[in-house]
């Protein structure tokens, strides 16, 4: 038996990670997972390896699973609004099936 939930994915600069985590918490997310990433977008290449003098500019990919679509959209919107004018980043949603819905409620 599985339940529908939504995964919010945020790919952005490492330097604003704390702010993103705060937004997730404020909006009611129960947790998140983060991995180191590199990438290319409208604002140039960001490598994921090798010594870089400005490591803090590398990307992270944050994933948050929430049980309600509305909360997912709120998180994605809040991050985009607060940061994406000045920092590079993208955000999108995916539908997922969870097994233990209580883990994603407060």
């Amino acid at each position, binding site marked *: 038996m599985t339940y529908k939930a939504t995964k919010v994915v945020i790919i952005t600069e490492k*330097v604003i990670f704390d702010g993103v985590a705060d937004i997730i918490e404020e909006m009611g997310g129960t947790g998140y997972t983060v991995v180191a990433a590199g990438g290319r977008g409208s604002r140039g290449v960001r490598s994921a390896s*090798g010594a870089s*003098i400005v*490591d803090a*500019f590398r990307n992270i990919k944050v994933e948050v699973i929430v049980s309600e679509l509305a909360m997912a959209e709120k998180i994605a919107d809040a991050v985009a609004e607060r*940061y994406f004018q*000045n920092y590079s980043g993208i955000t999108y949603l995916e539908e997922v099936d969870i097994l233990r819905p209580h883990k994603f409620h407060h």
Partner: protein
Amino acid sequence: MDLVADFLSRLVTQFQSPALAFLIGGMALAAFRSQLEIPDAIYKFAVFMLLMRIGIEGGLEIRDASFAEMLLPALVTIALGCLIVLLGRFTLAYLPGVKMEDAIATAGLFGAVSASTLAAAMVILEEEDIFYEAWVPALYPFMDIPALVLAIVLANLHLAKQDGASGNGPKIWSIIKDSLRGSALSALILGLALGLLTRPEQVFEGFYDPLFRGLLSILMLIMGMEAYQRLNELRKVAHWYAVYAFAAPLTHGLIAFGLGYLLHVTTGFSPGGVVLLSVLAGSSSDISGPPTLRAAIPTANPSSYIGSSTSIGTPVAIAIGIPLYLALAQMVF
């Protein structure tokens, strides 16, 4: 014309000195698109070791120095940090195609200090047997923090005015705290405290000091690779950044040399100290400056300030600045 001749001959020798040679080697590798990579962990560790080495020695020395002796140089250092930012704010910012925040952030970075440039100068002074008070490198934060803080404050004032909002202003104390928490200043201050309060002589002499030169050579290599790779970021911004990045290190270094000379005359500040003060002023931050500015002046375009500092500022500060101040010192002292 003795100065010119001496400077040129120093310039030539300097190109054979390990610090500069590794810097140029790094640029050549990047230009040739070599796949050589120094792992990030090694880079971070090398920076940590350099700053610990500078800090511990500074701390050990301050123990024996009189605070009075350091007071005036420290004040001059603070003044230099602020002056450099104001200079940039009132020159670079008015050039065509340059945005005010970008200019202020760039000036902040050039006011702040590069640990590797400083270390390169220390090694060269030691090679040439030129004495300096061992606490001089520990003046680092006295230039670094004021420059970054002032740049952030000015940028916020500008943005507040622009928005028409009164704003509640940037919190100076929180900017200072953030600076001190950055990895570079943390390591330096840890080293200072250890040198000042404990007995780290053995581990200093057996580990931090002997690895200093070698790790510096590796940092120089990395700086060279980065300098080349970031050149094309500089191409994305106004040409004036390149002009500023070339002229600023030398201008700042020479101003510092002048003030240092006054200190020499009035307080007996050593010629080696004057050279290091010039190097501090001429260098631009490469480690903790950029992320601090990125977080505190988000609207400033990082390509402008990182490109200027890493691609042109640092190579100029090392390759031209250091031999220039040495030649000057030779002449006036």
